[in-house]
């Protein structure tokens, strides 16, 4: 039997998951019962937010009009820039991709990035212009853009709609004809790549694998290349997208292995699996580990949950190889973890998954980027934790991370967007015209786009601009640490590092937001922002407003008591700092947008 392994890649929202639905439907893989939109978005959070976070593989069977039967392993991938690492891991399991472009939007920032990921991996690209049912669709224009920007001949593009199902047959034929059969000898010694995994309470770690050489079956003894540990395989199988137990996985197959791996640390995504008795000497190159670029502290609201949080982080890391964590202690928040993420959405998603899937209540501190400091004694170190920021006199050189930012937008918004980029301390590299649209390439300090840049960009361009970025190293910057004081006490977990030019406005923004979100307390509470001990902004949390009935006599007791009874107290996520109850929003005050 023939096999084709491919991922669906595209800019965010260009319809990957929806088109996958149509393909599943066409191949009879969608049970009447579980018919719903974006079937492959299986996480509750994905369904709520309407975006894909995790790549999801599914195995399908396709019988061509000429009667030949193919196994298709389809992997639906996320489009958001933060989850790009998911895409690159999925691609390691494939020989080809469906590159989707929304016919009404054209080529966007992540279309380009994902296309190059595929090219770099030597994958065959099947271009698909999607959503051609939309009134604003311009399929020919989108195909032309693919040719102009990425060099994919316009006449190769298949026009399709994930809504109506148009083009699905052509896509299936193209997959078979254009994407090569996976290489590999089923009789050779086993060699398989772990491209994802998750922890199952009963079966231990479930490994998602692409078999490169050989065959793996239940009861086989396997060895993990990185640590030499061996395990006996309990079960193997494929994805429906749920786990389906099978007989064996042969070279070229995409599937899963359960081998009672109970210690999470034994299963590294990117590792190579070999047969115990015939170990391979050459591991698969794997992928370069994702480099977290945004860091924040995660603390349990109640200290007893620290251990549970650690276990949860370890389990979640299995399913999301892109984030890192290490223990950290804060005077204000106690024991917690400093966590590194690929972006803000990634950070948000991790926090939410921890809270839902592991039933934890967490406080997250403001996200920060990694700074590089050269001290007067010559040592160089990197820090993302404002609490570790040394005093000014010990610093020789301060550097901050820069990104190369690419913004795709219609011509008419170029002026205001360039203005925004100047505000964000950006400098232009080039500007390219792509039909009626423009690609702006800028160098910008990463910290400047971290918080509200994307929202501003979207609002300035009425939603038409898209962006992507990559880290390009460090540049000198005049940085200061802004401390935040609550009731005249410095709260370490609230400190932020910021460029000197932005310190005053940021300090103002933080104290104002905090005064707004910290509930009124028994006494007025001053909130101050300081640099090196000098106060740069101040706001006050007011004392409680009077909340007592002036009059309470016989006639009114029942009625008034009932009023109180109705006003149930909500339970909020709070952390006590001294005598002040500080809610989660206060720790993220820095994220609030200028407008609100």
């Amino acid at each position, binding site marked *: 039997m023939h096999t084709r392994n491919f991922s669906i890649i595209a800019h965010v929202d260009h319809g990957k998951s929806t088109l996958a639905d149509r393909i599943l439907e066409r191949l009879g893989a969608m049970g009447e019962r579980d018919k719903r939109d974006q079937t492959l978005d299986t996480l509750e959070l994905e369904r709520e937010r309407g975006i894909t976070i995790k790549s999801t593989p599914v195995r399908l069977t396709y019988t061509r009009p000429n009667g030949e039967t193919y196994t298709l392993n389809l992997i639906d991938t996320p489009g958001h820039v933060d989850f790009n690492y998911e895409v690159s891991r999925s691609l390691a399991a494939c020989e080809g991709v469906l590159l989707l472009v929304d016919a009404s939007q054209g080529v966007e920032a992540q279309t380009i990035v994902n296309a190059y990921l595929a090219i770099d991996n030597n994958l065959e690209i099947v271009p698909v212009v999607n959503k051609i049912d939309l009134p604003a669709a311009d399929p020919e224009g989108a195909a032309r853009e693919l040719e102009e920007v990425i060099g994919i001949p316009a006449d190769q593009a298949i026009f399709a709609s994930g809504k109506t199902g148009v083009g699905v047959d052509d896509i299936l034929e193209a997959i078979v004809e254009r994407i090569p059969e996976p290489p590999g000898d089923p009789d050779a010694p086993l060699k398989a790549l772990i491209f994802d995994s998750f922890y199952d309470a009963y079966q231990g770690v479930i490994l998602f694998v692409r078999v490169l050489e050989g065959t793996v079956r239940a009861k086989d003894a396997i060895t993990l290349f990185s640590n030499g540990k061996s395990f006996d395989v309990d079960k193997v199988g494929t994805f429906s997208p749920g786990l389906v137990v099978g007989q064996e996985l042969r070279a070229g197959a995409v599937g899963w292995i359960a081998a009672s791996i109970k210690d999470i640390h034994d299963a590294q995504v990117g590792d190579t699996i070999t047969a115990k008795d015939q170990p391979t000497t050459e591991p698969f190159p794997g992928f370069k580990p994702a480099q977290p670029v945004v860091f924040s502290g995660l603390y349990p609201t109640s200290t007893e949950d620290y251990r549970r949080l650690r276990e949860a982080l370890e389990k979640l890391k299995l399913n999301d190889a892109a984030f890192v964590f290490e223990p950290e202690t804060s005077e204000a928040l106690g024991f917690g973890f400093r966590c590194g993420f690929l972006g803000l959405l990634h950070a948000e998603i991790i926090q939410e998954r921890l809270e839902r899937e592991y039933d934890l209540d967490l406080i997250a501190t403001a996200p920060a980027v990694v700074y590089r400091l050269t001290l007067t004694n010559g040592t160089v170190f990197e820090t993302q934790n404002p609490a570790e920021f040394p005093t000014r006199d010990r610093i020789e050189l301060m550097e901050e991370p820069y990104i190369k930012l690419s913004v795709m937008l219609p011509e008419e918004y170029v002026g205001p967007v360039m203005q925004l980029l100047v505000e964000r301390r950006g400098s232009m590299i080039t500007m390219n015209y792509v039909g009626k649209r423009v690609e702006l390439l800028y160098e910008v300090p990463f910290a400047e786009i971290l918080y509200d840049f994307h929202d501003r960009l979207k609002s300035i361009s009425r939603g038409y601009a898209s962006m992507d970025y990559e880290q390009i190293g460090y540049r000198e910057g005049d940085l200061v640490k802004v401390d935040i004081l609550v009731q005249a006490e410095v709260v370490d977990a609230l400190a932020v590092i910021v460029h000197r030019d932005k310190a005053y406005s940021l300090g103002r923004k933080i104290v104002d937001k905090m005064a707004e979100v910290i509930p009124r307390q*028994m006494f007025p509470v001053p909130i101050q922002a300081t640099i090196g001990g000098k106060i740069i902004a101040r706001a006050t949390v*007011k004392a*409680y*407003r*009077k*909340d*007592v*009935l*002036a*009059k*309470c*006599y*016989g*006639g*009114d*007791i*029942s*009625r008034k*008591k009932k009023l*109180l*009874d109705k*006003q*149930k*107290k909500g339970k909020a996520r709070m952390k006590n700092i001294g005598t002040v109850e500080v809610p989660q929003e206060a720790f993220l005050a820095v994220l609030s947008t200028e407008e609100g």
Partner: protein
Amino acid sequence: MTHPDPERTVRHLYVHVPFCPSICPYCDFHVLTRRAGQVEAYLRRLREEAHELAGRYDVDLDTVYLGGGTPSFLRDDEIADLVDAVRGTLGWGRAENTLEVNPGTVSPERAAHWRGLGFDRASVGVQSLDDDTLRFLGRRHDARGAAAAVTTLLERDFRVSGDLITAVPGQPLERDIDGLVSLGVEHVSAYTLTIEPGTEFARRGVTVAEEDEQRGFDVTARLLAERGFERYEVSNYARPGARSRHNLAYWTNRAYLGLGPGASGHYPVPGALTERRTNPHLHEWLTGDAGEAEPSAPEDYVTDALFMGLRLTDGVDLADLSRRAGLDVRARYGEVIEAERRAGRLTLDGDRLRTTDAGRWVLNDVVRSFLNA
């Protein structure tokens, strides 16, 4: 401790007179301006209801309180008829009989008439001794009239309590307090102006400034303390020995009868705890509708008692309350009590649970903690 120990005998009576000369813009009580024939119908039904209550409960009155509305707005013969109806059925208070009085209704003759009917205490709606403030509050009397009313009642040998409304924009609070004290009242009820939904002030969008509220609450307490008045309840102040015995019955969660439309009572129930009953408004009440009783389970009884009792400076005796309710209050509400103590809103001194100054300021929130527990 599992058997509640309710009271059997009712010692307090509240009578509601729902008529006022005009409706004040801040008032959310159940009141009406009077119409022809209504007072007669009211008095007839009141007599019947008094009979019914007397037949149903073991009554031996310590205090009677005639409130409203504006009871002093009743004509001399009407109020005599009302007192007669009460005396002939439920009796009269041994210790304290209060009449709520509107300054505009007082004359030396009427004061003598009321005294003769058996009232010995008057609660006078002075509200302010500043004409602008009184006008803002929509009162019909002026400062001189209010002062004269208090003096007249004192001369007729009434114990007099003066009502003040504080936190009114522009009100000369210190002068009001000094003025009222120097008239010779022994008791002051000082309420911060509250804009209740549905009132004319609410419709007009009147608001009370936070600073005015704070002053009305704290400055009033300080000024009155300096002048020899003890704050014994959130809004009530008395010279030694002059506390309102009737109102204390509410705040200590005692049984009392409610007579008249909109009046509520807190009644003993044989073999169980108490029940609360609020009479319906005038029209239904005239037809004999007595409203619905709400029996109180031990927890209701306890939260009622705390809701009222924590208003008192003396607080609540938890051992006594546990005995009356048949519920170990410290066991049931230990966590709340502890949390509120740590937050500095309650203190527990032996069995006595009290609010701190901070706790009194946000007492609703303290009570909500108990209701949520």
